[in-house]
């Protein structure tokens, strides 16, 4: 589904990614983990075309999408839940969900489905996103991505600031999506909860992929988690 090879990218003068590789098979759930500031978000931004790579390639569904405009990449099936929420403050909850909703593809997700997943949002339907609580914004960001009915979801710290119940709900939801054949790339700090969902962990260190393996393997290799995750 998604493959990036030897990706180099950064912000203006400061380089961040030094030959990042990563591959997500269709229908699988993969996590990207690492310490703060190692380049997880940058990787995501580069995949989405929001940052131009200086080297390397990005393939989506086999097609070379390197340096394409973000909307092309999104139209190719990528659904992003960005770090730090980034909902549209001046739109109401409802508008946030509808504005970028996409009727393309199977059209699994509808307003009602999202509202069922997060009843909170239904209650706040007319409220402007600016005044939502942190967690509510996070739910909105997730719902917004789902409404584009992506072939592949990218979640950058999507469970941040969510109450345990909601977090559990989201993980359950991911499990369901996985069952429905959705491809997912998830960035999260919560290994324990991820273990339920992900097939493979990818560990990133200083802009490079340094280790990959199943949750079980990671659990079996404490030195890895100690070295790269500090736990």
């Amino acid at each position, binding site marked *: 589904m998604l493959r990036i090879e030897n990706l180099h990218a950064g912000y203006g003068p400061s380089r961040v990614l030094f030959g990042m590789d990563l591959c997500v098979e269709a229908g699988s759930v993969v996590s990207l983990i690492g310490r*703060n500031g190692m380049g997880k978000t940058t990787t995501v931004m580069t995949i989405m075309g929001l940052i131009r790579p200086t080297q390397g390639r990005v393939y989506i569904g086999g097609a070379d999408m390197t340096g394409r405009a973000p909307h092309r990449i999104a139209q190719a099936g990528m659904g992003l839940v960005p770090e730090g929420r980034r909902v549209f403050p001046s739109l109401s909850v409802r508008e946030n969900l509808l504005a970028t909703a996409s009727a393309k593809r199977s059209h699994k997700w509808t307003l009602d489905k999202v509202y069922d997943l997060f009843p909170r949002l239904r209650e706040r339907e007319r409220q402007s996103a600016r005044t939502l*609580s942190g967690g509510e914004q996070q*739910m909105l960001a997730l719902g917004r991505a789902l409404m584009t009915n992506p072939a592949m979801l990218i979640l950058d710290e999507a469970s941040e*600031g969510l109450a345990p119940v909601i*977090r*559990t709900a989201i993980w359950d939801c991911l499990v369901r999506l996985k069952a429905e054949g959705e491809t997912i790339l998830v960035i999260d700090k919560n*290994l324990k909860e991820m273990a339920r969902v992900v097939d493979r962990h990818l560990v990133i260190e200083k802009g490079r992929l340094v280790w990959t393996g199943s949750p079980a393997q990671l659990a079996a290799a404490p030195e890895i988690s100690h070295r790269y995750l*500090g736990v």
Partner: protein
Amino acid sequence: MIAAPSTDSTPILALRHLDKRFGALHATRDVSLDVREGEIHALIGPNGAGKSTLIGQISGELQPDAGSVWLGGRDITGLRAWERPALGMARAFQISQLYLEFDAATNVALALITRDGGARRWRGAFNLWRPLLRDARLMQQAMRYLDMAGLTRPTVAVAELSHGERRQLEIAIALAQDARLLLLDEPMAGMSADESARMTELLDGLRRHCSILLIEHDMDAVFALADRITVLVQGAVLLTGTVGEVRGHPAVRSAYLGDEDAQN
């Protein structure tokens, strides 16, 4: 009116019958709670329960519709937001509020010079002549707080820091204000596992110096740190109690924890 809270063991922070509405929404319902000297008081509750709103009213960003806020036995309900830090309260935001164009050290330095609101006029922040950066002592001090919070890159513009690093800076600034009361809104959020662990130690160590009102969804941290926990649901206090009491409480499990702590 409401009588001043009893002064035998004056709580550092006392909320009395706070009430706040946003139009139809009742975001804070008759909330009363005490934060005692040197305690870490956790405030948990579902998303949208009204935790940040409560912090907002304590820090003066929001005016309560009714009720009063007491800091160290003084009624500060009427004070404006910028007057309160001078009385010894500091705050870390849930969604980072930082000076993006300055580097981390400068961010902290500003917190240092504005201690007690820069009230010491010409020796403090309101000084049009004294250069900020060429002040070695100030900068060293700033560095101390930075590595307390575990931030390793003091001279990089905040705009170029990663999300997690920003969260760390957020804490460093709050610490630098060296307040009697810390209001921390989800300090762990966005920090990687190891950073959260470090943060837990750090806060644990702070106990002696100040009191903390801690909002956090990371239950491991909460249960590890909190002396007492207040559970907020739909703007109202569900209960206040020790870790044990809260953990066991069925309502809390259903409304908030889910089967989360069953796992660990």
